[in-house]
């Protein structure tokens, strides 16, 4: 079963996500893996906890793929995000974008991670040796044109 969009507590596997978008017509696949770093803002991280509104998170990924295909026709995009406790070095998110053209594969993968951070209903909590902190980033408004424009500018060189 090749899920394009998945939110689950299972370990992520980049090869699985990449396989979901592979196509003999596509000569370029860009994969992005976000992993948990051992430090953040000068503090040692022990692990992260990710919480998601799962059904809406999956829909947000579908929406992001739809937005990407408007800009990069024919793009094939897959997004898997992990929930629950994620250890240092493990992946929290994997994105794969396949296209006939490498510029499109790079652009769509970058666009996807920017949009995930803007609109996906997912929240992380950082656990340090001496405490923990919930991270609050962007207001999750999928219709915010300015946010979408920012994501597009970062994606397109």
């Amino acid at each position, binding site marked *: 079963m090749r899920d394009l969009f998945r939110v689950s507590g299972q370990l992520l596997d980049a090869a699985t996500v990449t396989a979901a978008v592979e196509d003999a017509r596509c000569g370029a696949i860009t994969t992005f893996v976000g992993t948990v770093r051992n430090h953040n803002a000068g503090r040692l991280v022990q692990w992260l906890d990710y919480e998601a*509104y799962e059904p809406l998170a999956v829909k947000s990924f579908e929406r992001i793929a739809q937005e990407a295909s408007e800009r990069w026709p024919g793009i094939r995009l897959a997004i898997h*995000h992990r929930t629950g406790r994620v250890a240092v070095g493990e992946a*929290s998110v994997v994105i794969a974008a396949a296209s006939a053209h490498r510029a499109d594969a790079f652009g769509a993968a970058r666009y996807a991670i920017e949009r995930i951070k803007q609109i*996906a*209903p*997912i*929240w*992380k909590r950082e656990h340090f040796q001496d405490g923990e902190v919930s991270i*609050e980033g962007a207001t999750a408004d999928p*219709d915010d044109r300015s946010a979408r424009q920012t994501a597009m500018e970062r994606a397109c060189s």
Partner: protein
Amino acid sequence: MLVTVKLFAGLRELAGAGELRLNVAEGSHVSDVWRVLADRHAGMAAYAPSISCAVNADYSRMTAAVQDGDEIAFLPPVSGG
């Protein structure tokens, strides 16, 4: 009418629960549901400028009308990825 409210992250912590059942007046909007919550839980009102919402697991607006049985989710600023 009865709605289910889903709360996440900071909102969940303030409410002490990720899911609540609320009785709201006929003709309520999402903003009315929010007001009930904000009145009940200290600190929640501060989130007003930065929350977004979903109805039945679709992105929605605070101005949307609420139906009996709806699942209303309030989303504090997100930090996935």
